[in-house]
């Protein structure tokens, strides 16, 4: 189970686009909680996902126009803790891992 925290501007459809990232993959959304967070909003999602989906979701959410930040609340997702979108980091470790 993964916990995701996504900050976003509360513009039309942004929360729905975030949720759609999960629903289009057929993921059960175990819990969802959205609330005001400073000048923005934050939604906390609990999803049962595999590591590949974690990466896909991170990048897909970040590609949404009004998403500001994507974060994770579990150790398994620590590799995504770098700058957004996270695919540009850890080049050496990626290369080494797949060498």
């Amino acid at each position, binding site marked *: 189970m993964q916990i995701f925290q996504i900050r976003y501007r509360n513009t*039309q459809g942004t929360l729905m686009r975030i949720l759609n990232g999960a629903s289009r993959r057929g993921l059960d959304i175990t819990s969802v909680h959205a609330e005001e967070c400073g000048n923005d909003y934050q939604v906390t999602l609990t999803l049962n996902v595999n590591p590949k989906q974690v990466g896909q979701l991170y*990048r897909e959410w970040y590609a949404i126009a009004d998403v500001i930040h994507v974060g994770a609340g579990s150790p398994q997702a620590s590799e995504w803790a770098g700058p*957004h979108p996270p695919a*540009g980091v850890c*080049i050496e470790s990626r290369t080494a891992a797949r060498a």
Partner: protein
Amino acid sequence: MHKGAEIVLQCLRAEGVELMFGYPGGAIMPLYDALEGSGIRHVLTRHEQGAVFAAEGYARVTGNVGVAIATSGPGATNLVTGIADAKMDSVPLVCITGQVRSALIGSDAFQETDVFGVTLSLTKWSRLVRTIDEIPEAIAEGFHWARSGRPGPVVIDIPTDMLKAKKEFSGPVKFTPHARPADAKADGGFSDTIVAMLRQAARPVALVGAGAKLSGAIPELRRLLDDLNVPTFATVHGLGAVPPQAPYYLGMVGMHGTRAANMALHETDLLLVFGARLDDRVTGDPSRFAPGAKIVHFEIDPAQLDRVRPCELPVIGNLADTIPAFHAELRRHPLPDFSRWRAVACGPERAELDPRGLAQPTIRFLDELFSRLPEDNVILADVGQHQMWSAQRYRSASPRGFITSGGLGAMGFALPAAVGVQLAKPNTCVLCVSGDGGFQMNIQELATVHRLGLPIKMVIIDNKYLGMVRQWQQLFYERNYAETDLSDNPDFVDIAKAYKIHSWRLKEDAMREFPVSSETGDLIDRFLSSPEPELLVFDCAPEANVFPMVPAGAALSEMLLEEEPTQ
């Protein structure tokens, strides 16, 4: 005081819109009422799907934002396929839809559809306008998202009372994107890393996709590829980015790609990807895609990375920036000698399609047709066998010269898209190749072609089947041709006549002699050089197949070169 509709049109003009495509209806009527004198030409199609595909054609060939207009309810839902198509193929598109009166929204009013909700997962951005004051900002922001980064579709849904309302209007606004934490971008180090990877590689290859064209970095890419001089191939949307005569170019890759390209991709140990999504039609079985390769992925949209197969080195950014940076570094370091690998990958044994495929009359016909086109041409292909044959035989170095619905595979795309292309390029020879199934999906746009007198050259490859589906049925469903028989097709020549479009028929027997007879050659020349719209129906063998073919779920190395092995 200005009506909302007038404000919409002024804002569109401010975004550079000169041409838009649409179909009127109740909720959007105020916009049509304000059209005259707006400075924007509106083209009436005969179906909203025709309008959105025409807008896509215009956008794909120019790189500008295409605009489609529709009314609420069915008008808006008829746009959906085009919106999905624009999303898949990264086409900048703004759709403006009328909506029922604000007070009726949510009441299931006549012709009310939640188009905002319906298109939410297909759009980059969308807005249901709630007040007339929001209109300028919505249009400015919509155009920003449509054309920025990886281009895509936008929907702006405007209730009819907002179009009728009046307000003081001081002029269009500029949209400034909201700041976000710094996006990860390729830093300077990526060039060193790629050079190091190249120096360790024995069998490097390059794969070119649509992103190379969208970035506008074709000259830079071609210079880089010339210096790299490694086996190179393209996706269907990458066709034209690399000159076909380049000695290292192997043609199209993927499900119906060339044997040479697919084999090189299967055998490579270093894959450089320039602006391609690596979807399943390109990769085949992802678990066996380029099995021994490290992947360097140049891509503007991070959401496209690692979708099918993780890459070792993502290079995020506009190719117009990252390619020159990499090339500059490459020039400072001599590369290893890849000539032995080139000789294998680009050698004559792999260089051609199977001879049996080349002998097909339809392929000969397309070769004949393409070779007789004037230099300034655009080819559109619909979806199906003719699309893949056309892609396989495409030999132009024009980056925006081959247009098709590649990602979504939307039958019926080509004819209305050709309308948009021809309007954008009035002096260009626009050749629209369709199948008999797809042509009937938007056949009503013959009326648009006739009304505008567009000299589009339309070709129907008529095999009286849904040919690609039938091919799969033949190869993988034991010839159970369930519901793919179109032998009761109408006479397309008569249909064209009814639309007052001159039409020809050519039997495939005309292509059995090589070279073709002077009569056949003259017919094709007259067809292509006519200043009027023309339709040419080519009678194709019902069971002609597209080869090579990588069966779904197979590795690229497991392509079928002809049908016998599966029998």
